[in-house]
């Protein structure tokens, strides 16, 4: 079991990803945007962060860069989970410190396999 911070503004997407991760026995903390995720990250540590990109208040790429500035998140794997397919955005995510990029719709088995690879 690992502790995962899941960030997405879509309730239904959080439900789907949480369901998948729960089936694998992982422990999930949810945030609805980058600002809320950053607040949670100030006082908690996680083994993995999964974040959407397009969210109100703070997007997932800005969140990734901000998390990398926190001591507890320097080496924490951060996976982007997004509907975006743009190469420039992917490069931005990489430069911000993301570990990987998963395009929605995700395959539950492949999502879990990717998590196992990065933790």
């Amino acid at each position, binding site marked *: 079991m690992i502790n995962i911070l899941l960030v997405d*503004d*879509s*309730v239904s997407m959080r439900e*789907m990803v949480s*369901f998948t991760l729960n089936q694998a026995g992982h422990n999930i903390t949810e945030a609805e945007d980058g600002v809320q995720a950053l607040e949670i990250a100030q006082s908690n540590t996680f083994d993995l962060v999964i974040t959407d990109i*397009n969210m109100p208040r703070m997007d997932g790429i800005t969140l990734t860069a901000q998390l990398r500035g926190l001591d507890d998140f320097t080496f924490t794997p951060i996976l982007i989970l997004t509907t975006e397919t743009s190469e420039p*955005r992917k490069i931005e995510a990489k430069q911000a410190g993301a570990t990987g990029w998963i395009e929605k*719709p995700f*395959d539950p*088995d492949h999502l879990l396999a990717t998590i196992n690879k990065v933790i």
Partner: protein
Amino acid sequence: MKIQYNNSPSGLPVTLTGFESINRYWDEKHDIYAAKILPGEFYVSVSGELITTVLGSCISACIRDRKTGIGGMNHFMLPTDIRRNPNSWNDTPVNMQTRYGNIAMERLINVILASGGKRSNLEIKLFGGGKVLQIDTDIGGKNISFVKQYLMTEGLKVAAEDVGGIYPRKVLYFPKSGRVRVKKLINEHNDTVKQREKKYIKSLDTSPIEGRIDLF
């Protein structure tokens, strides 16, 4: 999402990058530029165009920001053939149908929000989901149930709907005003709608319902 505007050729109004392949034209009858979408496509207009489509079993969500008048329409159905993907997730909330439908809705909403829309200003209208295809399962009904469940989960209200029934529909959506005109195709003699939907079903059942994964 970074929103970029394209100056379109042939005097067509400005559109967002990513929608270049959508069929756009001057609609003489309604005296307005129009974008016509096909099964599996979606379009968001930032120029007050008319968006139109013809629906059989497929469903379209027409969504706009009431204040900015920026809005769009999608046109999709859920994949039908789960036999090709027999796995333990089929009877769960993350089955292939739900994952595909979820993204069809999220893509449309994301572009509207990225174009300056606010979630609290969204106005949503639903059309389609007819029992049009002569096959055993009520695909249209499943599409309607999915969209309603999705919107309820997301806390988004449906302002108007014309769904179900047995006839195909032609939908004309004016995102600037939110007005929608629906024409039931009761005397549809050709079967273009059915043929397009069957082709779409086949493409859904043969192409992967999964995005790319890249580790950096």
